């Protein structure tokens, strides 16, 4: 295990705080004299030990240096390089003026205790905390614990970046030579290099690292900049929270990878700005914070002086009022108070009440407990007050669960029956492999909702979302119905779904309120590739100038759009870019809700309107608004017995 903390503090500056892990005072003194020699004596303090090591582990020492950053950076690199060859008996792990890192081996509380953090009145403008189960580094020494610091940056990272080799190549070419060897430290180094030596601002640096898809880059200048700094772009899974100070302001940056393979949420209340892996962590500090998530491949930026600078979404999130429609019941024998329970205790308590024949159980003060509702198979109503943890109602067969608050990741996974009602937002991977029953979300939901949903005979799951969702809605969907109402974005032209809707869909039906851009449905080749192909045909005289111009003037199109605009032979040619052996033609209709749809969904619309007190809105949307309806061409027919393939 490893854990650690970092604080960013504007008036911390008394010089660069060089922090060293060393096996003994002697080694710390060696670092001191090496530093002194390279800094020409501008060291203000001897190494001061921060704690007494236990079990022969490394001790942290601090010394203060007044120096030009470039000279200090080189000295740190050289000293670390030398000690790395020398069985790492010492390593400098932090050297900022405004950054202070406390990290070690053990649980967060252990680290808090060895640094005596409780008794030191440590104040900061921003705090970062991290705990980990090491998967990619040995973890037995504190040098591998998070946060990783470089210059005025401190970062924590969840993930395993697949661009690690590329990022290391860039760092080597820039003169970095000594690493502890994790993919997390490169993130700190890249951010520090871009801001300290290339003078990018925080926003520009974050944009390069979080690495949106090329097709989303706004102009050729950005393309060129991203090309030049391709070695700093991150790929593979990551969510990162970083703190930085330039001496005038303190910044919080949070970013997620382009597929959003790792969770991240951000939040804001009157006093603080938050970023975390799970909402429950934010709720530990603030009951009232507005919490939302970052778009895939985007970054969140806030500062002490300016507040939220960029919300991590191209469109600021719209919320329903978080005030619960129902006051939590008072603590009594009839309800479970989860305030001091871990997930095992809570689930045991639910199980015991259920065994005694309870028909309804109220649970209050829920904060991050996982697996609620898992393993119960009798009809039972659960009312959950607070923020339940991941994997709520997985494998649910019979429970009717009502949540007064937001839910986290992976709700209703492989659910085959029962119902989940959420008076708030849901996060990523909602209703994965959902195959029976109903899930209603009043607010927004995250990435990969309803992926791999399926139906069997009379079991047809229905997922209804009142707000908007991010990418990959209904990916690999094989059955059931998803409805995205986007009620909080009515009267706007905001599309209430992200990219790659219905990618790999083979069955079921998706309804999205409003128009969905054709290129967002399924996986389409980049626009530039299609235009390139058509331009080739134009230059060969196989496509008319008029036809080419018609397509080139469109910002967004799909194969269906093209087949309506271009001659048949051209469509046949260009379809090569779209169609492959796994491609399934999707029917996309833009229309109002009709009789057939109501036969399928009427009960759910009514129930959704009733439980969320949104009847008027739902009725009006059904009667007046256009929907984009998506289903596979051969799909959504009553199931007939067929031999299954492979």
């Amino acid at each position: 295990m490893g854990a650690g903390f970092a604080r960013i503090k504007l008036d911390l500056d008394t010089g660069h705080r060089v922090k060293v892990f060393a096996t003994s005072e002697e080694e710390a003194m060696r670092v001191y004299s090496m530093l002194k020699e390279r800094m020409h004596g501008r060291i203000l303090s001897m190494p001061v030990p921060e704690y007494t090591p236990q079990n022969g582990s490394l001790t942290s020492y601090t010394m203060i240096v007044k120096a030009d950053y470039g000279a200090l950076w080189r000295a740190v690199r050289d000293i670390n390089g030398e000690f790395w060859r020398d069985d790492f008996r010492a390593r400098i792990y932090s050297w900022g003026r405004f950054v202070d890192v406390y990290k070690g081996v053990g649980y967060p509380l252990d680290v808090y205790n060895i640094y005596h953090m409780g008794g030191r009145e440590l104040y900061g403008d921003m705090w970062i905390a991290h705990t980990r189960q090491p998967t990619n580094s040995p973890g037995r020494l504190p040098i591998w614990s998070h946060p990783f610091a470089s210059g005025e940056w401190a970062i924590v990272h969840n993930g395993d970046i697949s661009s690690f080799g590329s990022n290391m190549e860039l760092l080597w070419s820039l003169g970095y030579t000594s690493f502890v060897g994790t993919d997390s430290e490169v993130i700190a180094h890249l951010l520090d290099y871009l801001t300290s030596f290339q003078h990018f601002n925080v926003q520009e640096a974050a944009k390069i690292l979080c690495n949106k898809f090329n097709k989303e880059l706004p102009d050729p200048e950005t393309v060129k900049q991203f090309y030049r700094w391709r070695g700093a772009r991150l790929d593979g899974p990551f969510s990162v929270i970083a703190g930085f100070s330039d001496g005038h302001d303190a910044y919080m940056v949070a970013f997620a990878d382009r597929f959003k393979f790792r969770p991240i949420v951000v939040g804001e209340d009157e006093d603080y700005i938050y970023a975390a892996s799970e909402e429950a962590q934010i709720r530990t500090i603030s009951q009232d914070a507005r919490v939302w998530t970052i778009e895939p491949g985007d970054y969140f930026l806030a500062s002490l002086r300016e507040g939220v600078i960029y919300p991590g979404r191209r469109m600021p999130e719209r919320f329903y009022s978080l005030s619960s429609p129902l006051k939590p019941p008072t603590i009594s024998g009839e309800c479970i108070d989860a305030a001091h329970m871990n997930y095992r205790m809570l689930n045991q308590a639910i199980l015991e009440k259920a065994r005694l024949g309870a028909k309804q159980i109220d649970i209050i003060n829920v904060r991050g407990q996982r697996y609620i509702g898992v393993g119960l198979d009798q009809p039972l109503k659960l009312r959950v007050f607070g923020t339940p943890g991941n994997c709520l109602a997985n494998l649910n067969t019979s429970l009717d669960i009502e949540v007064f608050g937001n839910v986290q990741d992976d709700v209703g996974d492989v659910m085959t029956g029962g119902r989940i009602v959420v008076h708030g937002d849901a996060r990523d991977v909602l209703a994965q492999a959902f195959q029976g029953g109903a899930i209603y979300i009043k607010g927004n939901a995250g990435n990969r909702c309803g992926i791999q949903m399926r139906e069997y005979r009379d079991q047809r799951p229905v997922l209804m979302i009142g707000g908007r969702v991010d990418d990959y809605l209904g990916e690999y969907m094989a059955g059931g119905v998803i409805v995205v109402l986007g009620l909080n974005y009515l009267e706007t032209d905001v599309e209430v779904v992200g990219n790659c809707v219905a990618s790999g869909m083979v069955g079921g039906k998706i309804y999205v309120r409003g128009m969905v851009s054709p290129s967002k449905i399924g996986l389409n080749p980049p626009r530039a590739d299609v235009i390139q192909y058509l331009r080739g045909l134009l230059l060969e005289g196989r496509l008319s100038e008029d036809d080419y111009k018609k397509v080139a003037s469109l910002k967004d199109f799909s194969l269906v759009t093209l087949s309506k605009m271009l001659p048949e032979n051209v469509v046949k040619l260009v379809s090569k870019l779209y169609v492959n052996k796994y491609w399934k033609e999707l029917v996309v209709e833009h229309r109002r809700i009709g009789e057939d749809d109501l036969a399928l969904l009427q009960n759910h619309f009514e129930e959704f309107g009733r439980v969320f007190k949104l009847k008027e809105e739902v009725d009006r949307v059904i009667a007046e608004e256009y929907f984009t309806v998506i289903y596979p061409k051969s799909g959504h027919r009553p199931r007939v017995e067929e031999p299954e393939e492979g």
Partner: protein
Amino acid sequence: MSIWRRDIVSNLRALAGVEGKTAGEPPIASMGTTNPPLIEKPQFILDHIVSDGAQVTRPSIDPYREPTETEVYLFDGEVRLLMPLIIGGLCGINPQHILVVIQACFRMGVGVHLEQPPPPTLHPDVRSMILLDAQLSMPFSIDRGPLVYHVESVEDLAKIKDILEGIGGRRKLVARIPCISSQQLYSEIVGRGFQAVIIDEELGGDEPLEVALSQADHTLKRLTINNHPARYLMSLIAASRRIRSSSDIFKLGGLGADACVISDAWRIGVDYRSEMEPSLLSERIENLLIGMQREIKLLMGAAGVSSFQSSIVGSRELFRAIDLPQNMCMRLGVKPAGE
């Protein structure tokens, strides 16, 4: 043993639509492999290199349902190829067919390497994707496309110095060099304003392509242009008649190639014949390129990577060597398997 093993030829032809009924579709038979070095006998260094697979904490990416970027930019971001591929080996092919190849490549966003000037009527956009061997006697006003200079030594560069000074800055300049690792030559190439280097095994040299390429990548990373590592402002291209497949292109990418020039591979793949119908040639090239792009995407997806240029090119950490001597691993910058 021919370098064109039966399974390699058959795979290329299936992609091109010469064999089978699924043109453009990478054949996937089963898990496991019959490939070198463990089953078939390895013939080149490339055969000793394997790609790291995605694993639990770093999932694979399904390129049929999620975006994977095979595009690469050349010439400091100004030319965009849809995939890391350039078609070469067009010497001795009749002019009508050359035009067909150029057109098919343009549609598919693939570069072309030509030794003789293309038809002067070619549109400038098409010309911009053609790397043309420069003749010292050639008038430079004819077009603005990339020009390729054959350079073997610093002396060669001195000879064309005046020409370069006359046109430098207005042209995209490419140095085409044999498989040699000369720091001094690279330093001169960078200093003279070349924006790309083709390391071409057909020009000879004293190193295998893999080594020369990897060394060039690292040399250019140590050299600088305005304090920026030169490699990140320049393109590096590998060329050899023995580049056989998408997997070779993928591995050469890992050793530092932004793109590869293939020659025999495409001719064998489309079953090229001098008398073939231009439309058939055009179609087969398209199929082959689409198929190879899909194969590259599958390889990227299997490694958990979604961008070829930023995550594969030069990213040696994603690769491992099996049964290569330690000094060879060092020169390539690739760790032995198990490390």
